[in-house]
């Protein structure tokens, strides 16, 4: 599994992957008012993981992730559920969204909704799921259960 697969793919992925990740984060952040959001952003990040998987293999994907894919899904769900429940506590109902506007000197006004946080959760779930699929499909045959 640790055989070096292709110099071309490995070098290419080194430049492509960070770019895809940044675009995916961009999509996540603008998602509230423009096309994008946690799901699309998460899928794009998953595509980046796929590139890593193709060029470097399963272990490369695993080392890139801060957590076990399963925990990533769990964390994302925890974030989303917490935000959704906050609407139950402070707002009028489940999934109710709040919004804050910050006036930052020089940068200008920035507004962020609690739905952004919800989307962060969705992002994590999608990335975690794609990673899970890659780990399972890329599993060497002898250790398959």
């Amino acid at each position, binding site marked *: 599994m640790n055989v070096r697969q292709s110099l071309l793919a490995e070098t290419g992925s080194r430049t492509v992957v960070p770019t895809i990740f940044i675009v995916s984060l961009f999509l996540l952040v603008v998602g509230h008012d423009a096309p994008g959001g946690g799901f699309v952003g998460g899928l794009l990040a998953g595509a980046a993981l796929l590139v890593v998987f193709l060029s470097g293999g399963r272990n490369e994907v695993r080392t890139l992730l801060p957590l076990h894919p399963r925990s990533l899904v769990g964390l994302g*769900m925890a974030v989303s*559920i917490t935000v959704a429940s906050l609407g139950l506590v402070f707002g*009028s109902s489940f999934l109710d969204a709040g919004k804050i506007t910050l006036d930052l000197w020089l940068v200008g006004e920035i507004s962020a909704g609690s739905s952004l946080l919800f989307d962060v959760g969705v992002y994590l779930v999608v990335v975690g799921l794609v990673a899970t699929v890659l780990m399972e499909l890329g599993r060497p045959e002898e250790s398959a259960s």
Partner: protein
Amino acid sequence: MTAVVGLLLVIPLGAVALTLLLPKLVWRRSVSLIASTATLIASVAVLFGVDGDGPIIVNVGGWEAPLGIALVADRFAALMLSVSAAALLGVLIFAVGQRDNDRAFPSFHAVYQTLAAGVVLAFLTGDLFTLFVAFEIMLTASYVLITHRAGPEQIRATMTYVVVGLVASGLFLVGIGLIYAATGTVNLADLSVRLAEVDPALRTAIGWLFFMVFGIKAAIFPLFFWLPDSYPTAVAPVTAIFAGLLTKVGVYAIIRTQTLLFPADKPSTPILLIAGLTMVIGVLGAIAQGDIKRILSFHIISQIGYMIMGLGFFTVAGIAAAIVFIVHQVVVKTVMFLVGGLVENSSGTGRLKEVAGVLHKFPVIAVLFLPAALSLAGLPPFSGFVGKLALVQAGFESGRWLVVAVSLFASVLTLFSMTKIWSGAFWGTPTDNLVRAPAATMVMATGGLVALSLVIGLAGQPLLEIATRAAGDLLSQESYRAAVLVSGS
């Protein structure tokens, strides 16, 4: 109370998140068990609240219907929620008690709670597209549960299940597209107003399309072929929860959509015909089988026919009887499959030719089986009798003698095939393969559900009264419409 309805979704989904994060098995088990218990308590609280004060509406995210997604807890939904939550908890305890379910499969509890969330959402949603989403959540979780730890032979059988599920979902989506094109809304309450203005021919066509889609999920005649092949292949608790809940969610969707969107003011002969055929074909299929789980799988189909029959009368009495029957079936069907699981667990097989004498070796399993089997056949004073009696009375009121006669005939055959299991597996000299005594937890979980079914049998009258009020709501449609479209929360 609206907060409690919101909690019904937060609890299972929160449990999914936690069980994915927690590293230790004992923590995952505790979270899952606590979540299922809490779901049960919340469901029962909602049932009592709704029965007293009318439907509870939650406008998700504060967006009012028909623009936003509404969660609607009315009597029918709350009744289904309560009994399903009880079944989910019972099966979960059984699954924890049976070794190897959640040990070898770290995500078992997460997937199980996802299934629970899908079921809860399917009952609560007041929106056709969210119903689709709920079905997908539920089915996706079920695909994982049914294929996990399966050998090549089981994978082949479950492929049918997955493919049929996906085809039905595709048709469901087409139906939603059609209905949206015709009316411009997917909110159920709004649809019930606007569909009345649509061309009757188109409305009938869409109505049958939805009947077919949910009919595939509910396994009615002639769309049941996938069920007896796939269900028996899974491990006992998984089969039990599928048998107890999944087809009944399909029936729930049929009753909900047919009464709210495509109402009829007189008994529907085609629906009654389908109901009669489902009962008879199902029970005849059961008689031909020689394996406990396969016999029971065919009985699922047969019993679905009774529920559809109650709907087919389109009277308060008929639908009330159908609701009582569903409540009884969720519990009893789950128990039957758990008992089948106990026999398999002890002997390693469910084939009637290879196992005998369970009564002498492990009498406790026989004690659990007997009331459930008699209840399934509809003998008094067990819970099945209440439902069947109400169905027969409703049939007489509507003057539909033939289908009533057919249902009684199917009952006799049901009793016959129950005696087949009894004399095959429970009587006789114990076979050598009866080696593993059932774990106390598994027996207790099954026993709890048996006790619940006995209570349903004894409390038949109050249950029938709640069901009658629920059926009145369903047929008048006004309370549902008024609650969703006027009130905001």
